[in-house]
């Protein structure tokens, strides 16, 4: 009895080759993190703000009519106008361009702090974490000691030994800013050390250098980046504070802290001279924090699907 052959029931046969295909397009960590970052509107806003501040500070002063040190005594202490967008200070200097220029200083400080953290902090923490035992103990006690001494003391000491200025700020930041990162990296390394992929690398015969640079640090990158984005505004604020109390850059150069200090004196009469630099500091700090929050969420492997 020949049954009508229903093509629906024709066998599909062997499809071994397609069984192993991965159907989704390749996506690396970085791309996936970027996609997740983009969904966070606040973080994206922060990023845009940062970019604007960066571009304005670096390129702005090249295009303004006045330079940061041009004085026009007759036009001192003017409010915002068409000529001077944010007004002038007590020596008739254009506040707008001085703020932009101040941005350069602040960002230079930020960059330096970041570098110090990366180079000194990360390597120190990784070595301590990997070494373990007594070496780790010793290294962490050194960190404790460095941390305990208030940063202001360092700066004052340096200001006494050297002249107040950008150098002493850089040195002060260099001495104190790596400790937080070192602790963080050490903690990361301690937890990563026992992960099976680390054991696998050791089983293959990987040496210490390969373990640290090819495995540990890339996997600790996420918290490192997040820590960086949060500590940079601290560095900027520190610089602003130091300049505020007179230990920073000197006239006619101006960082935001210096501008704020100058503006404080004139608070009752020309409040905008304090307001504008303060707003700049706030915007910059907020922007970094927004970006940092967004990065932390975007890079957290547990939140990924």
């Amino acid at each position, binding site marked *: 009895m020949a049954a009508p052959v229903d093509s629906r029931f024709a066998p599909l046969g062997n499809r071994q080759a397609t069984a*192993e295909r991965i159907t989704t397009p390749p996506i690396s960590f970085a791309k996936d993190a970027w996609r997740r970052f983009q969904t966070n509107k606040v973080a994206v806003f922060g990023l845009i703000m940062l970019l604007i501040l960066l571009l304005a500070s670096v390129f702005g002063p090249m295009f303004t009519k006045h330079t940061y040190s041009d004085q026009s005594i007759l036009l001192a202490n003017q409010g915002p106008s068409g000529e001077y967008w944010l007004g002038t200070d007590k020596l008739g200097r254009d506040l707008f361009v001085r703020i932009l220029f101040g941005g350069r200083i602040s960002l230079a400080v930020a960059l330096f702090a970041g570098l110090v953290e990366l180079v000194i902090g990360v390597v120190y923490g990784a070595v301590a974490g990997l070494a373990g035992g007594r070496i780790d103990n010793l290294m962490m006690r050194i960190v404790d000691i460095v941390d305990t001494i208030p940063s202001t003391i360092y700066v004052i000491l340096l200001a006494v030994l050297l002249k107040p200025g950008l150098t002493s700020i850089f040195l002060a930041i260099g001495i104190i800013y790596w400790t937080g990162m070192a602790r963080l990296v050490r903690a990361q390394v301690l937890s990563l050390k026992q992960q099976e*992929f680390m*054991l696998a690398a*050791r089983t*293959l*015969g990987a040496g210490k250098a390969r373990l640290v640079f090819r495995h540990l640090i890339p*996997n600790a990158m996420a918290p490192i980046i997040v820590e960086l984005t949060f500590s940079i505004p601290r560095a900027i604020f520190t610089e602003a504070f130091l300049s505020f109390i007179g230990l920073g850059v000197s006239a006619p150069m101006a960082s935001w802290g210096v501008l704020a200090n100058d503006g404080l004196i004139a608070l009752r009469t020309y409040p905008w001279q304090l307001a504008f630099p303060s707003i700049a500091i706030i915007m910059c700090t907020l922007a970094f924090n927004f970006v940092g929050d967004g990065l932390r969420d975007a890079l957290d492997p547990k939140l990924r699907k």
Partner: protein
Amino acid sequence: MTTQGAPLVEVKDLKLHFPITAGFPIPRQVGAVKAVDGVSFSIQPGETLGLVGESGCGKTTVGRTLLRLYPPTDGKVIYDGKDLSTLGEREFLPYRRKMQMIFQDPYASLDPRMTAGDIIGEAIDIHGLSSGKERMDRIYSLLDLVGLLPEHASRFPHEFSGGQRQRIGIARALAVEPNFIVCDEPISALDVSIQAQVVNLMEDLQEKLGIAYLFIAHDLSMVKHISRRIAVMYLGRIVEIADSETLYSKPMHPYTLALLSAVPIPDPVVEGQRQRIILEGDPPSPVNPPSGCRFRTRCPYAKEKCKEEDPKLIDVSKGHGVACHFPFGA
């Protein structure tokens, strides 16, 4: 049944004690977790020895100590006649090509930041086995050997399924051309239908390349399937070691009996007729093992002698060793 000849790997009285420190200001050692406390066995070339036991018995530690992931407290590891315990780290490096490891967790045993190709390639790079185009070819052929496609070399671990990740781990171990692989619970974290895939792959590779395995697992059914011989561990010691069939049909140690009776069999008729030996209580702590025979606190047949004297692992019949004063069928 086992080819007699020189064993490939021999372990003699291996011990690994993790020190417990306490005290202030300078901590002192106050005790030790005796994770592995005198383990001896040997593995012939191309053979699989299964190592079973429950949590805390030390089987994973044995595997890791064999490959020097932990430095042994005592005992010897002998590879191809050479005593490895005397070697420094640098002299040991070439042996890392001969002895490799496959790990349990397919999600944690691959570096999430590296592509599959890099992961396999790292093995090649560390020992400088090849470079350039030859290296890529080698990576592709390794991927093929484990049933993956060349296009997978540029993908990241999170894009693969558990079974595929495990196969990448196998490819990585194979990249250095080892003769001996320690498999630490390689399939426990995989779905049932995938376990068979990986086990079949391992068996095929063994046949093709003549690799010996130390198969560490707690699933006795799977261990019996893949191993020629099985060693049963309890609290840091081997309590029985025999051919797989013999262990199943003529077990001699009370713990082995209890273990066998506890393993569920996927057949309702068989299950309905079974008499289970239910062990009371929980395994004691490896910090303070019981005096005499370690199993006596849970052994339904313990006698006075068991409290006083610690039984040694003795060969009762050809290739069948038991550590018990009153073994069954003796």
